[in-house]
């Protein structure tokens, strides 16, 4: 069997984390190839379903990136994000998913280095946790 490689979905806010990823690229910081980025206009656009769907369809980790508090391009989107995210995370943990499999972090557009670091750390964590236990299975 081929060696397992994690698949990580990053849902990134267009104004910060996505720009941070861009900056990481132009500054030549490398981050693991397991990272797959989906762009949304604001982390407030992230529906809990996006995360559950990603997990359900087999993603090994989901990372949501938004602007720092006070920096949201749409003023208050990230406050909604954190509320929703924390609720969802509690539900996922109750369902038996590891706490670290989903993560929310604020990364600004100027934090290219932080982006690369966060991705590396997250990737390492997911590798440590192993493959998604409910891949294709339980109906979350």
């Amino acid at each position, binding site marked *: 069997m081929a060696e397992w490689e994690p698949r990580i979905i990053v849902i990134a806010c267009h104004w910060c984390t996505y720009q941070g990823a861009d900056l990481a690229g132009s500054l030549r910081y490398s981050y693991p190839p397991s990272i797959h980025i989906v762009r949304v206009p604001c982390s407030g656009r992230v529906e809990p379903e996006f995360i559950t769907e990603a997990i359900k369809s087999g993603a090994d980790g989901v990372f949501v990136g938004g602007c720092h508090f006070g920096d949201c*391009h749409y003023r208050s989107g990230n406050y909604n994000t954190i509320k929703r995210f924390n609720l969802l995370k509690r539900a996922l943990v109750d369902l038996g998913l590891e706490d670290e499999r989903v993560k929310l972090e604020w990364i600004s557009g100027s934090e290219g280095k932080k982006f690369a670091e966060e991705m590396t750390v997250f990737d390492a964590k997911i590798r440590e946790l192993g493959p998604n236990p409910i891949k294709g299975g339980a109906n979350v």
Partner: protein
Amino acid sequence: MIIATGFKPMSKDHFKEYSPQSPDVITSMEFERILSSTGPTGGELKRPSDGTKPKNIAMISCVGSRDERHHSYCSKVCCMYMLKHARILKEKYPYINLYLFFIDVRTAGKDFEEFYVYTKGLGAKIIRGGRVSSVDEKPNGKLRVRGFDVDLGSPVELEADLVVLATAIEPPDGVDELGRQFSATCGREGFLREVHTKLFPVETSAKGVLIAGCVQGPKDIPESIAQSRAAAASAASLIIPGKIKFEAIVSEVDKDKCSSCGVCVPLCPYNAIKLETYKDKEKAKIEAALCAGCGVCASACPSRAITFHGFTTEQILEQISALVEA
């Protein structure tokens, strides 16, 4: 709508170490008035306490700026106006001893360094080296100033008749409230924020609300003028066409799906969502001209009645599953 409130000079009362109770410890703004021919002294240089002419004047920079206890930012104009005051004084009253305490002298800008060199040439003493530690009132009515001089590598102490504090530029009171009323965001230091430092320097996150001058951050007069002209031009370019173009990335409510719950109404940061009657029921309606396209409402709608054009739920889920399975 252009917000241009200007700034507020920080009051000296915050600085107990500089004896704010003494009438001879004044802010630069007050000093500017004393130097002005239309000021309270008619342009005559006098000590506020007894009306005598000061012979030794100390000026202190970065009072409240670049100071973790107050403001982390640099107020930008103080170095230059202190040099301006020094120049005026030295040209008019060459016999006055003038001591300028700086953390370091910041003269970035066209012709500014030349101004500094010229002023130094007039005999103003520049003392660099961190913050002045104290200003104390002496029994003889003078003020004792203690600081440090990096060039000498030792502490310095001098007696001054007048101490001028270059206090920080602050956002005026109530700017946060004003910003809130117009849906413009405030930064950490209390100044209103531009949408983009480089590309949209006078626009705020609220469409049609522009900012100019110190309400956006500390700046000098040429910059304020440049910014206000930019704001005026941006305002004109919104008004003159007579029509407003808006982004295609906006949310739209499917009224037949809307269950009238109203969760989206308070969530919208731009107050773009209203309830209106449709088939005898209150249904949400999004004003496309106000919608900035964040998608918060679409994510929150329990009936999935809101379509966020460009980033629909289906599109994003499709992307996610494609990426997971690829």
